[in-house]
């Protein structure tokens, strides 16, 4: 049953893929989005049902027995290395599986409408199914290599889906960028795996957890392991400094952004941290780094999101920022909180993206919010659901985002790994988030249509709206699984995660109420600021003009891409050219050929004796004779 969860979407992938290929062989007649979409949706929905069933069975079990395990087949067995292709479901990844399959199903449904006019929807759905399959392998994998298989597999699907519309070179490029940047992270992941294997002799999570308890390892090594794995997370979850691929990844179809680059794949870093929490619990140094990186990313991305004009870019930076918050949570030791935010974020960010997709769909592929406005009347359904998502991310109670974000801020403030600084940064991020999301909301839906397109926008079909509505409901209510002090989620995850850290000295539980209130105020302030500024767009433009330098820097995303281009890509290319044209061809190869030309030149030289002159020939005989006689006589009789 566990295997079926993974296999069902894979079967869907195969079915759609083969369908697509046979259609190509027969002459490229395309398959309709409805047919392929229904097939794909059915497979992922089946997977969801199975996950749900297993989840319910898990609930029924005693706390310590909440594990399902299945070994599909032995994978790599060499010497001491024994990696089985095993899946294991416990309390932690059951939740992830539910989110993936659940949100995935909704997004599949949405895509049926969204991809209706596309050339090759079957291919799209095949990729989407494949992604789900890999994502499930990632979370359900029982060992690091299996996780890594899924990890790279989702990267591949991300690559394929980002460059889905590959005829646009930029989109094709974005896909490659995503894959390569992810590879940088994977590099750390791999090394981390090696370190773990050589230290503990196993890569299976359960065995690792057991071994970690028994084998004494130097703290430095543990920190190294933690940080190396975290490098992998940086890549996959788009943290500083490897976040650059995610905004570009918006080149893919919007459902892809919703599923992969908001709800599921990018949060796998958080999953990994939670999965390895037993290890991280032993290394406060690594945790500090994680918290620092998370906080920095959150603030940094939020700052960029402030001024972006592409609806998906804003959401993308918002995702990066929210991921930063999740890592902040993990970094202060509150893994459950991080997971909580993963779930709520999956709901509301998927919602936001899909609504954005609905908007784009309605606006005929227009993504610039400066060209929108007044869509409330044109797309009322979308307006409502987007509004729900907006309030959720801003952290207005009782929407889901409020609970999780507030929990993060509280943990950041109160945890013994946290502190006022991270809390302050988190709060600032919350403020900015509320501001830019409101800006987005206002510019898109309120006011008047600023272009013809906006004036002629149309509402999306039902097949797209129904998933939105379901997600809206989830965004509104999802937070209740983690109500402070009565958190079902925390209780549920308690056995599988490392325990939350102690309270910081001098922090009291009463403070939590105060902070909760404060965060509501912050969110409200952000929203209010946005309304104040963007009621009249000219005021905003004036402000931008006044702080033009800052505005430009933010608009240009702090020039990070440019920096990488100049500091890494270009030098590498130049160095490679040097290696090839100068070092390889003119250096090594010339040495090799030099042996040949040495022989040739010796030949030319020796040939000069061959003048055809009999005298010279005789003279050479004489010289030979004399030297042989001289040498030998001297040698013997000296």
């Amino acid at each position, binding site marked *: 049953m566990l295997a079926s969860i993974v296999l069902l979407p894979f079967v869907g992938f195969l079915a759609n893929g083969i369908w697509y290929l046979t259609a190509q*062989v027969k002459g490229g007649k395309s398959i309709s989005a409805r047919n392929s979409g229904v097939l794909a949706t059915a497979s992922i929905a089946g997977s969801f049902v199975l996950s749900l069933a297993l989840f319910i069975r898990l609930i029924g079990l005693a706390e310590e027995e909440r594990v399902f395990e299945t070994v599909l087949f032995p994978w*790599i067995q060499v*010497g001491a290395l024994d990696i089985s292709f095993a899946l294991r479901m416990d309390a932690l990844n059951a939740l992830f599986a539910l989110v993936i399959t659940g949100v995935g199903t909704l997004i599949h449904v949405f895509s049926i409408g969204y991809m209706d006019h596309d050339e090759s929807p079957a291919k799209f759905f095949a990729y989407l199914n494949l992604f789900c399959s890999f994502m499930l392998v990632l979370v359900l994998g029982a060992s690091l290599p299996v996780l890594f298989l899924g990890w790279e597999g989702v990267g591949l699907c991300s690559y394929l889906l980002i460059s889905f519309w590959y005829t646009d070179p930029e989109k*094709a490029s974005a896909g490659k960028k995503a894959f390569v940047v992810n*590879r940088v992270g994977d590099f750390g992941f791999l090394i981390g795996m090696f370190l773990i294997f050589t230290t503990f002799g196993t890569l299976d999570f359960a065995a690792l957890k057991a071994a970690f308890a028994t084998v004494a390892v130097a703290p430095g090594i543990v920190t190294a392991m933690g940080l190396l794995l975290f490098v992998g997370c940086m890549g996959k979850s788009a943290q500083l400094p490897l976040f650059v691929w995610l905004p570009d990844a918006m080149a893919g179809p919007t459902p892809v952004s919703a599923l992969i680059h908001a709800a599921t794949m990018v949060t796998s870093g958080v999953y990994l941290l939670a999965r390895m929490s037993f290890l991280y619990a032993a290394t406060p140094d690594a945790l500090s780094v994680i918290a620092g990186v998370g906080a920095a990313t959150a603030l940094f991305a939020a700052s960029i999101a402030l001024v972006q004009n592409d609806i998906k870019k804003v959401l993308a930076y918002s995702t990066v920022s929210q991921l930063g918050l999740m890592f902040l949570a993990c970094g202060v030791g509150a893994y459950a909180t991080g997971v909580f935010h993963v779930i709520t974020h999956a709901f509301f960010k998927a919602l936001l993206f899909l609504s954005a997709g609905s908007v784009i769909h309605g606006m005929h592929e227009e993504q610039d919010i400066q060209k929108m406005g007044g869509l409330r009347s044109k797309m009322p359904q979308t307006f409502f659901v987007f509004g729900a998502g907006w309030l959720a991310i801003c952290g207005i109670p009782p929407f889901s985002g409020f609970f999780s974000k507030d929990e993060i801020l509280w943990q950041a403030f109160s945890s013994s790994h946290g502190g006022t600084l991270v809390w302050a940064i988190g709060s600032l991020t919350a403020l900015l988030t509320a501001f830019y999301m409101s800006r987005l909301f206002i510019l898109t839906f309120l006011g008047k249509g600023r272009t013809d397109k906006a004036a002629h926008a149309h509402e999306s079909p039902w097949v797209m709206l129904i998933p939105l509505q379901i997600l809206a409901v989830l965004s509104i209510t999802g937070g209740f699984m983690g109500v402070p002090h009565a958190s079902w989620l925390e209780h549920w995850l308690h056995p599988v995660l490392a325990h939350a850290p102690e309270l910081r000295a001098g922090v009291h539980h009463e403070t939590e109420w105060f902070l909760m209130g404060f965060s509501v105020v912050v969110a409200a302030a952000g929203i209010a600021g946005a309304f104040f500024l963007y009621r009249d767009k000219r005021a905003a433009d004036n402000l931008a003009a006044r702080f033009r330098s800052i505005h430009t820097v933010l608009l240009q995303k702090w020039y990070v891409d440019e920096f990488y281009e100049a500091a890494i890509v270009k030098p590498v290319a130049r160095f490679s050219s040097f*290696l090839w044209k100068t070092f390889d061809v003119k250096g090594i190869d010339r040495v*090799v050929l030099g042996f040949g030309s040495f022989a040739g030149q010796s030949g030319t030289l020796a040939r000069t004796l061959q003048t055809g002159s009999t005298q010279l020939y005789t003279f050479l005989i004489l010289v030979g004779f004399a030297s042989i006689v001289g040498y030998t006589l001297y040698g013997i009789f000296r």
Partner: protein
Amino acid sequence: MAFSGNLLSWLVFAPFIWGLAGLLIPARNPSWTKYWALGGTIVAFLLSVVVYLQFDATSAAFQLQESVSWIPSLGVSYKLGLDGISLWLVMLTTFLCPLVILGAFEAVEKKHKGFFFLLLALESAMLGTFLATDAFLFYVFWEALLIPMYFLVGIWGGKDRIFAAMKFFIYTMAGSLLMLVAIFYLAYQFNVQSGMGISTSLFDLYTVKVPGDGYLSAQSLLFLAFALAFMIKVPLFPLHTWLPDAHVQAPTAGSVILAGVLLKMGGYGLIRFALPLFPDAVRLYQWPALVLGTIAISYGALIALVQTDIKKLVAYSSVSHMGYVVLGIFSLNAAGMSGAIYQMLAHGISTSGLFLVVGMIYERRHTREISAFGGLAKVMPLFAVAFLIIVLSSAALPGTNGFVGEFLILLGLWQTAPVLAVFSALGVILGAFYLLWMFQRVMYGKVNGEENAQLKDLSTREILVLVPLIVAIFWMGMAPGFWFSKMQPSVDALVSKYQASAVAELRKVSP
């Protein structure tokens, strides 16, 4: 079975004899020749399957041995045998050859008979190299295969084919000649030490003990002589410069054989000869070899990055990938060694695939310049899928064959030299970069030009060529145990010479 006693001989010589018979086919029927040659390789493949079925995976010993006294006065006997290591390389060879021939059906424009005969002869020589258990016999096959390869490159190759053929031939031959001298020396030493007469039998040579303390001791010099030959073949940086020329100029079939099988001989030679024969020298030169392997990985990848010719890019990618093989071998532990062998197989499959794929578009467009292509995914969707899968396997995506080898090699290397493992792992990043970039430039973007828009998608024949490769890619990626199980005893026996203790330690730690 009729040939149960000398199954391996049948396997080795069947393609050659078949090819000879094929020469009798009248030249006016090129298609008969093609199908005849295809039949020959399939027969060889079936024979190798029989070999596989008869192979006992529980034993590290050489099996299906044949031994006939050949040149008694030189201590040379005709000895064949295979163990778990050679088994898969043999299978790789027999597996690739039918695909190569099928792939070359349309590519050959002149002298069909010669072309297919040479391919079959080449197959025989390659099989012989992998199966010989006598140093002399090994050397005979090793050198003999240069001849067909030389003609394949020189007659059916690209513009600079003659230069490339010459360079390939002389470079590799010069390298192996010193090995010949070393073989002499060992055979002679065997007589001196054992008094049982000279012998070039591998098993006898294994017993020879040569003083090996110091970087210039007799054993080290012998090792260097062997290693030079093998590392040129691998090819290891900085001995690789024959490879871009030969690969690029060779016809597709030649490139595939070169990359798919010939390069593996270097690695195989190291495993079969250098390691068991010269344990002290190998330990001494372990570090230089590891450092060079590490350099090779990044070096090949970086140069591949800036290539404008697809074939050249693939050629340099081979330099990079084969660097892993050297690393794995010189890690001197079970993980590294198994990984190295696996990487050889994987590289054989995926790089062959790359060359075949490049050959397919070359046949259509008669150019290999990346800039001449663009947007092919639109006009050739099937091709795009196949190409992508092969590219990904070359980029070592988990789930494909490339990953298993690289993972094990890096794991093995990590246990030997963590710092180098870190640097080698950089190849993981660069590999994805240059391969996907190439893929992007060729396949993605707008359809570039009228010629590209007219391209036809894969034909049935081409699909038949690629499908087995793709199946192998995933099979090897997902079920490596199938492969490892056969070679494990041999690898363990080999590694135990070096790290009897280390393996045990690892076993102890694992729960």
